[in-house]
């Protein structure tokens, strides 16, 4: 049981970090970023290239992932989403654009990094063993701790910095924020860059453990959607809650339901449907926020 909980917490921390980026972009610009999973894969490949191919330390790879993805996010916002949002009659047009970007990133990843499964060598050796009750390799613990630290850093940024305040104001009410003198264009760009950077960071973290391959983008986006459905879209606490809940459900489900075959996600989906029937806006979301 302790093992299941520990696995769930570890998974949850990763998931929460992915969901945070997605929910940030959603709350600022009302854009559902289909390309989030692809950004995550891209971040993983950047870390792989820096660490495994160039032989630089892991932290450099992680920084490279963060910077490249942040720049990519900013460019995507300024040159793609901004003009389309301005010109289109419906909010939904951005979905088509986001899907196009997802395909585009898939193509770029295929051309630049190839289709093979890639991983980097373990960053720390050894296995933590608590009386055979919890067995967990040290690198997983390190990654989990790093993920939690990043989540804490992100919350601190949103709560206490001027940038964070501006972004929260934007998420609450775009018009009012603009009237109060918030530079909407600038903070939309920063927000998108930050969201993309988070995706890249998780990719960089996870490449050390599960490795990375081209096909992981779509399923990762799907999981991120699930999390923000559970927690409520556009709410930071909701994304974190959703991430940990999904991580926990996956961990418990894989153990408990193992006897019935691979039906964990079917069960999760069915329970989500029941949950949404009672609470369509998720745990912490505003109704139709």
């Amino acid at each position, binding site marked *: 049981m302790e093992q299941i909980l520990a696995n769930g917490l570890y998974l949850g921390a990763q998931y929460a970090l992915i969901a945070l980026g997605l929910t940030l972009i959603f709350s600022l610009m009302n854009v559902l970023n289909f390309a989030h999973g692809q950004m995550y894969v891209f971040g993983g490949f950047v870390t792989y290239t820096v660490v495994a191919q160039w032989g630089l330390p892991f932290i450099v790879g992680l920084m490279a992932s963060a910077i490249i993805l942040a720049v990519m996010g900013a460019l995507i916002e300024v040159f793609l989403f901004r003009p*389309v949002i301005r010109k289109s009659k419906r*909010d939904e047009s951005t979905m088509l654009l986001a899907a196009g970007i997802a395909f585009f990133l898939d193509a770029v990843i295929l051309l630049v990094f190839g289709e093979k499964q890639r991983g980097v060598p373990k960053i720390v050796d050894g296995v933590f063993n608590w009386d055979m009750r919890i067995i967990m390799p040290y690198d997983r613990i390190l990654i989990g701790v790093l993920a939690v630290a990043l989540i804490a850093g992100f919350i601190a940024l949103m709560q206490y910095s001027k940038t964070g305040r501006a972004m929260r104001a934007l998420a609450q009410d775009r018009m009012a924020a603009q009237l109060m003198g918030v530079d909407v264009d600038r903070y939309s760009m920063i927000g998108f860059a930050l969201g993309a950077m988070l995706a890249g960071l998780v990719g960089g973290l996870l490449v050390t453990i599960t490795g990375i391959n081209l096909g992981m983008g779509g399923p990762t986006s799907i999981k991120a959607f699930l999390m923000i459905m559970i927690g409520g879209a556009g709410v930071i606490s909701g994304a974190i809650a959703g991430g940990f809940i999904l991580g926990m459900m996956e961990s418990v489900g894989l153990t408990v339901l193992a006897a019935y075959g691979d039906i964990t996600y079917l069960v999760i989906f069915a329970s989500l449907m029941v949950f949404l029937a009672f609470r369509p806006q998720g745990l912490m979301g505003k109704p139709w926020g």
Partner: protein
Amino acid sequence: MDMNKQIIGVAAFLLAVFVLVPILIAASGRWDLYYTLTSVALLAIGSAGVWLTFYIGRINIGQGAYALMGGYVSAVLMTQAGFSFWATLPIAGILCAAISVLIGLPILRLRGVYFAMITLVLTEVTRLTALALPFTNGAKGITSIPLPGELSLLGLTIIPDFATMENPKLAFYLLAVTLMVLTYAALWRIVNSRLGHLCRSLQQNEELAASIGVNTAYLRVLAYAISSFFGGLAGAVFVAISQSIYPSSFAVADSVNFMLYCFVGGLGFVTGPMLGTFLLYFGWDLLSVAKEYQLLIYSSAMIALMLVLPNGILSLFDRKGGGK
């Protein structure tokens, strides 16, 4: 709109797809085009469903799920219960519609991105379910499904056995196109009926519609069920053509594509999804000469299209701006 003009347009279209295309293909010898065009016709049926859900103001990225379900229903019934293909076709559609009612009741309360997200999740869950269920044969899928047999009514053969045909490709093409024409005729009829007006009221303002006595919950589920019926139908025919089905036959990318077909064609027009499907699928097919750059060019073109025409291709003809 001018009634005569419309009739002429429809007649020209029917003439083109039923007479002109087979003649041109026979003349040019490009028999492989039949497969492409058949796929276009079937995918257009699926996108018609997506379009209808958009008509009630919901973005449906779950059509792949129903296509997969319809395909499996047809495949399982044919291989394990000995049904004829023609019987499985309506069963697949109706079963998908029934399942969509169960799923739709809770999820249709969601709106906007929330609904879009959950339908996308539904696609992935359907794939995982197809992997896990005992009678779907897991990742190996169901293969060597028989070709459609003879369809006869009171001893009169309406459609001969596909296996005995000289040219089953042409037969499949005609089948798919006939279904597509029927689907769009039904769609056109729905849109221009009382039901269509009610759906439009939902698209514009659901609360207002409910406040003047429109049964919004019922309408939403009805539109979603019709949409899923189309999805199941398309899936079932696909299975008959490829004679096989795997859990990955319709995946998330297909669901997203169904949505894209609608968006590209334009959401304000009944024929929008058909045009979108044709352009995107045909474009994709033509780009196969670019080999590894195929996806890159395709997605760049899509992004460029969004930058230039964010409201769909048919919005070019939409001079009034915003009007239907």
